[in-house]
């Protein structure tokens, strides 16, 4: 096995182990917040994947919502409460939607791509609001999840879900890191820099874009089904464009250099949300807005670029040399 591959696997494992241990020390409210942040982080990881190929989706609420509803409907209508199964179904459902929608929108770039994804997510929102059979605008509540047949009591269910979330997040982050470092991941960067040359070298920009969109969709579905279980309730707002806006916020805050940074950024968002809900309930959006502008001005490479400064050749920073170059290119 290549040294960097081994390092990626190893850091994924170490991170997962560390987070699992930490989980037993955290207070319940923070446990819930971290779980929710991981759900958001997974969706944002999808956006990062798209960003590496030069695209930003302002409509990831679409796949987040589909993942959540797929898991929710399976749980309430068919009575499947197995958390791993619900996650899988959420991921597959959204991934399939990504594979279907991807080819339709893969020709678009920049704001057209962004707006088209918004439009699609809002179509879903509009449909769900009117579908009274599945709760309309109120949505519906999910039963408590089970874990391989085990039904945790109220005190431990948050911990059980946290453990699941950590495992899923570390697996997803490791897989994404491997993909970014692979030849296919390098081709995505090439697509972002110069599409014409990619075609003239004989590779398909369309394929790269559809692949990234499908991966982003699957990650979005995973995040959606996870948060459906964490929140215990889903509604059409999962697909509303302001929800998608938060995912974009997390991605920009994280930057596309590090896969770990998205989860840190998501946690920052959640903590800011909790604190401002408590102390400045009227100005939560304003704080986020100011935060976003400040990030773009003062930290253009995102939280990931901070990681890199700290750990020069650390696991999260990826391959030092090329990652540094990316840093220079990062918008």
């Amino acid at each position, binding site marked *: 096995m290549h040294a960097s*591959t081994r390092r990626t696997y190893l850091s994924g494992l170490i991170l997962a182990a560390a987070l699992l241990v930490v989980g037993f020390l955290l207070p319940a409210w923070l446990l819930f917040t971290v779980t929710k942040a991981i759900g958001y982080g997974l969706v944002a990881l999808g956006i990062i994947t798209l960003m590496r190929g030069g695209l930003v989706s302002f409509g990831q609420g679409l796949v987040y919502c589909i993942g959540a509803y797929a898991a929710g409907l399976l749980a309430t209508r068919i009575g499947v409460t197995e958390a791993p199964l619900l996650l899988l179904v959420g991921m597959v459902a959204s991934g399939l939607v990504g594979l279907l929608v991807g080819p339709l929108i893969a020709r678009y770039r920049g704001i057209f791509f962004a707006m088209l994804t918004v439009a699609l997510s809002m179509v879903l929102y509009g449909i769900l609001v009117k579908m009274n059979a599945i709760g309309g605008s109120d949505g519906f509540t999910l039963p408590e999840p089970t874990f391989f047949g085990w039904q945790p009591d109220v005190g431990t269910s948050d911990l059980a879900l946290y453990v699941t979330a950590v495992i899923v997040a570390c697996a997803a982050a490791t897989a994404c890191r491997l993909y970014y470092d*692979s030849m296919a991941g*390098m081709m995505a960067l090439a697509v972002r*820099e110069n599409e*014409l040359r990619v*075609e*003239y*070298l004989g*590779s398909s920009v369309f394929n790269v874009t559809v692949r990234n969109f499908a991966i982003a969709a699957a990650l979005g579905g995973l995040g959606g089904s996870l948060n459906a279980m964490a929140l215990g309730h889903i509604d059409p707002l999962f697909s509303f464009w302001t929800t998608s806006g938060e995912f974009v916020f997390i991605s920009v805050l994280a930057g596309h250099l590090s896969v770990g940074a998205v989860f840190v950024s998501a946690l920052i968002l959640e903590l800011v949300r909790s604190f401002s809900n408590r102390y400045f309930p009227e100005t939560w959006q304003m704080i986020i807005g100011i935060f976003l502008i400040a990030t773009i001005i003062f930290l253009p490479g995102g939280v990931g670029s901070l990681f890199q400064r700290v750990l020069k050749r650390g696991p999260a920073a990826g391959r030092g040399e090329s990652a540094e170059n990316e840093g*220079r290119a990062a918008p």
Partner: protein
Amino acid sequence: MTSDTVILEARDLQKRFGAVVAAQDINVKVASGEKLSLIGANGAGKTTFMNMVTGYLKPDSGAILLEGGDVTKLNPRQITQRGVCRSFQIPQLYEPMTALENVMVAIGASGRRFSFFQPADLNETVEQARAMLKRFALDPYAHRPVSELPGGVRKLLDIAMALVRNPKILLLDEPTSGVSVDEKFPLMETVMEALAAEAVTVIFVEHDMDIVTRYSDRVLAFYQGQVIADDDPSEVLSDPAVQKYVTGTAGPATAPAGAEKEAEA
């Protein structure tokens, strides 16, 4: 013609941009292994011809045959996959990446299968990329971001990337433009040396008649979208029409509007 095997054939190519005739009645047969240069003033139709052959532009009528098969309707990617590769007047590089990484992308695009779970910088890939850089004497620049590299080096890298696929036909669009006069010959020398081992057919656009004479077996002279002369260099350059319309029109080698747009795209 130096060989009887026709590798590329253009039949009755026509192309207009509004009122401008960019190609008219173009009939060309290119033999395998030939070194063919295209000359003509700016706007004479050289780049249009090259863009049609590589699928960037579709001719209004006529056909392009590659080894006897019709490739007129194929897009640049499909044409590239059939072994027709090109370089660009303004080098099309991945600016933030290093020279080595640029060639690695070319290797990645060349059709070999790569695992999603293996890093791009596997030894084998890196070695192949280094070897290609070495052929063009670019090894000192391997780890420099290409945006920092001088013009001549960028030109060579652009050509090196086109060569990764071992093309049957290599099209070079003004390989020596944007390079200082002293550098033109060394650059062309490097390119031709790098190509010496290949049985590749080369078609290149060139404004410098000394380079045309020295490095091509055959010359096509373009004027107002038409081929006005097609023969070996000495014949073409002594043709009165060519002297009047092509070599007489001395001027700086500036890019036609279409080429600039293409570069920005």
